[in-house]
Every structure is written in structure tokens, then in C-alpha cells.
């Protein structure tokens, strides 16, 4: 199966901050889609987060975006700016896809 190179962005962000990120992704015409996964805990600069029934303020999600390298770099910068002082990390890696027009 022939494949095409793209970049995969992974954004870990507070669940309550996710809509702002998705809004950004949705208004960027070069981005054709995203997938959001729930997290059940994490640790970083701002300490450890484990799920709790009392409140969902500590919940985080992982947003996965597959797109071209150029768009990925631009999006990475934009998302990091949106995050500013907010909790979160952005990762980029290589990925291959079969249907190039799809991403």
C-alpha cells in the first residue's frame, strides 16, 4: 500500500480549554479534521491530576490532528500561543496516510 507523509499533532489540554483549541482548528481551512480522546490523569509542571467525582476542572483531553508539515508547524505555534499560561503540551511526529486528499 502506497503512503504519503504527513505530520501528527497531539495536544494535551484541560477539557475546559479544549473548545478554544477546537474553534481554532475549525476556522483553519487547511485542517480537515481532528480526533479527541479523554485522559484519566496526568502529571506536568502544574502537578498531578487524577479523575475525581467532585469536579471536572482537572480533566484533560488529547486532541489528535493529522495534517501537512507546513500546517502542522503553523498550528503548533498557534496552539502554544492559545495555551499561553494554560496547562498543556503539544507534540509533533511523523505519520503516513493512504488517502492523501483526506488530510
Amino acid at each position: 500500500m502506497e503512503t504519503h507523509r504527513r505530520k501528527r499533532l497531539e495536544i494535551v489540554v484541560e477539557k475546559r480549554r479544549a473548545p478554544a483549541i477546537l474553534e481554532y482548528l475549525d476556522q483553519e481551512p487547511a485542517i480537515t479534521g481532528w480526533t479527541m480522546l479523554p485522559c484519566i490523569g496526568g502529571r506536568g509542571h502544574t502537578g498531578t491530576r487524577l479523575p475525581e467525582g467532585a469536579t471536572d476542572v482537572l480533566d484533560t483531553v488529547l486532541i489528535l490532528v493529522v495534517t501537512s508539515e507546513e500546517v502542522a508547524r503553523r498550528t503548533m505555534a498557534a496552539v502554544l500561543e492559545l495555551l499561553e499560561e494554560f496547562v498543556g503540551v503539544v507534540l509533533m511526529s511523523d505519520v503516513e496516510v493512504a488517502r492523501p486528499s483526506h488530510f
Partner: protein
Amino acid sequence: MLCFLLGVIAGVVRSDLEIPEAVARALALYLIFAIGFKGGVEVARNGELGPLLPLLLVAAGLSLVLPLPAYALLRVLTRVSRTDAGAIAAHYGSVSIVTYVAATNFLQSHGIAYEGFMTAVVAVMETPAILTGLLLARAGERSGIDARKRRELIHEILANGSVVLLLGSFLIGSVTGSEGLERLAPVVVSGFPGLLCFFLLDMGLLVARRFAGFRTMGLGLVVFGLLMPLVGASVGLLAGTLLGLSRGGVALLATLAGSASYIAVPAAMRLALPRANPSLSLSLALGITFPFNLVIGIPLYGAAAGWLAG
């Protein structure tokens, strides 16, 4: 109460007992709905809204003002940053709905009456504290808050899920009155003690888990978490007595003033003060002040209200 204790014990022995998150959150919504609805029905029944308006104003004022002593105490007792102190202060100006529920439960089981419209007071006290806390925290920051963020924040304050649900169910209760109560009673009245018990079991587990964080927290913070409810409750007792509330009403206002939010305020703080450490305020509000109020505070405020009334 014993359910809470069981939860704490299970947590302390690090049992794998665990109430699924989705169910715990649904239980919290249920409690808010039930308390709001029953408050509304009570108001529809008695209709005596006489002292309500001044009470609501005073309550909002309490919520606005209480972050000030909290902030001062934090700066004196601890070494947390201004941002964190402002964020924590906002939690203590606001209120804990579950603590309120436990207090009404306490009053009922001791046969002490209280005003049905107190539920409206809860809703009114939830969010003003956020403003004061924010001003205190921002005093220590260079950057202002931009227009977009202000909009987000105001939205968060007004459309906060627990406030909307509490006010909404209060309105539903006051519209449908006794007739509505009859239909919903099996769920919102008969089911209440049992479901509260499960919820407190979960709260106990959470509190116990938060205990673990205290070693790293410093004595100052622990002292704050025990002192501040007493400060808040004293102001609440005074205000309630001056307003001429019933004994039960005074006790409830004291409880509200002495309690710390861990639902509405943390959510707003994540937007407004992302640099504030959410674990810190949650550990204080949930891990120290909540159990303190549950075990010691509520009976104390009840006794003090009786003494003032009598």
C-alpha cells in the same frame, strides 16, 4: 455522615473502593436539583418572601467581601503567591452546596426549621466572590485581562452549570409547588438521604486522597483551612441575626459563609487565573474545610445560632 466516615476510612487504608466518576457527577447534579426544587416548593407554599430581597443583597455582599479576610490570612499564614492567594480567597467567598445540603440535613434531623428561600441564597453567593478574588490576584500581576477573556469569564460566572441548575430547579419548584412535589417526591425527597449517603461516601474517598497531599502543603495552609471557615461563619452568624432570620436560617447562612466552593469557583479560576494551582485550592476546600465543616462546623454553627436566637 457515617457514610462519609466510611469513605474516609476506605480512602485512608487505600482501598480500591471507587465510585465511577460519571455516577458521582450525576449524584452531585441530583443533589443540586433536589435541594433547589424543594426550596422552590417551600417558597410556593409559604409565599412569605418578606425578608428575601435584603437577605439576597446581604448574601451577595458576603460573597464579595469574604475573600478579603481570606486573602489577608493567606498572606500572613502562608507563602503562596498572590495569584494563588486570590484564587483560594475566591473559593472561600463562594459556597459549597454539599456542605449546605449536609447542614439542612442536620437541621431537619434536629427538628430545627429554616426558611425555604435559603436555597436562593446559595445561588446568589456562588459567584460574586470570583470577582473579588480576581481583583486581589490581578493586583499582583502586570498584564490586564483582555476583552475576550472578560467575556468568557462573565459567561462562565452567569452560565455556570451548578448555578443554572440550582436556580432552574428552584424556579421549577416554585412554579409547580405542592403538586409538582407530589410527583417528584419519591425521587427528590424519599431518595434523598440514601443518595446523599452514597455521595458522601465518594466525598470521603476524595477527601482521604487529598489528605495525602498535606504533608507537602505546609502547616500554614492547614491552619488557614481550619480558621477561615470560623471567620466566615462568624460573619454569617452576625449577618443572619441582624437580618432577623430564624435559628435554622442563621445556622445555614453561617454554614454558607463558612464553606468553600469546589465546583463553581475552580471552573472559573481555570479560565481567569490559569496560573493559579488548582490542586492547592481543591486540597484546601475539599480536603480540609469540607470535612471540618461536616464534622465540627455544622453542629457548632447550629449551636451558636441557637445561642444567639435564645
